[in-house]
């Protein structure tokens, strides 16, 4: 027995935006995490630059990517012929996306606040919180990819 793998053509565009947005979101959170973690590890003047770079990446790349991913997800769900609200994988995806958004907003605020308060020094406590949350977000996104691809029921 084979699984039906071809979806209706009308689903392709929202799926492209959903997956593309998710990839851009993961990539930008990863760039921010690497920049902030590298800034955490060093005490030289590069730390301030890394902090600023990580904070700006969260604000200008990760947040817009999140909205593309999330809006496209609802667009696809609206095309489902049967209600899917109670399916486990839909719930898992929503949980990862919505809880992830709260963490992403907190990480973005604290990292940018750290840049604003002390633009010329190393990470400090606030930016370290931002760095830690970015790592948690990456783990959450791996869970979301697992839920979306394996669709546990």
């Amino acid at each position, binding site marked *: *027995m*084979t*699984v039906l*793998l*071809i979806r209706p053509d009308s689903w*392709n565009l929202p*799926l*492209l935006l959903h*997956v*593309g947005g*998710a*990839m*851009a979101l*993961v*990539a*930008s959170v*990863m*760039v921010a995490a*690497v*920049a902030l973690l*590298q*800034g955490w590890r*060093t005490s*030289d*003047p*590069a730390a301030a*630059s*890394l902090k600023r*770079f990580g904070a700006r*990446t969260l604000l200008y790349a990760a947040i817009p990517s999140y909205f593309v991913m999330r809006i496209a997800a609802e667009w696809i769900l609206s095309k489902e012929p049967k209600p899917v609200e109670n399916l486990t994988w839909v719930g898992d995806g929503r949980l990862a996306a919505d809880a992830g958004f709260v963490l992403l907003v907190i990480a973005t605020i604290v990292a940018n606040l750290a840049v604003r308060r002390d633009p010329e020094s190393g990470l400090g406590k606030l930016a370290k919180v931002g760095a830690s949350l970015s790592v948690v977000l990456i783990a959450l*996104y*791996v869970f979301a*990819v*697992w839920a*979306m*691809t*394996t*669709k546990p029921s």
Partner: protein
Amino acid sequence: MYRSRRMGYSTLLFLHVTSAFTMVTAAGLFLAIALAQRSERHSATALRLAPAAAVLWPIGSLLAIVFGVWLALHDSQYSLGDGWIIAAIVLWAIGGAIGGRLGAGYRRVTSAGAGADPSALALNLALIVTLLVILIDMIYKPGAS
């Protein structure tokens, strides 16, 4: 039997998609390095991002093709001779070559202190376009029955 086949397909799809995400993440790091290198202020930042990109790119691209081919062989609906799969493999090779050149260039800058490659931004744009076309190919599957 159905369940185990379904499980196998799902696991392979998860590994394939996760590898693709890793590739895109490395491409994001490549782009961040190119953008950071454009200003003197952020050039030190670029050097700090290069090691992560140099690790993620080869791992992500290698695993994406391995699990992608495995997926095509595993499922009877797919064949390695399908036009959209051949196109994806050709595009993957093009992307791999561009990413390999970018990674090597950034390694030179990091280890030998060489100047930034002036073509890095153009190569980054070419890599992003290639990855975008692969994604479109994977989702629209042109020619699939």
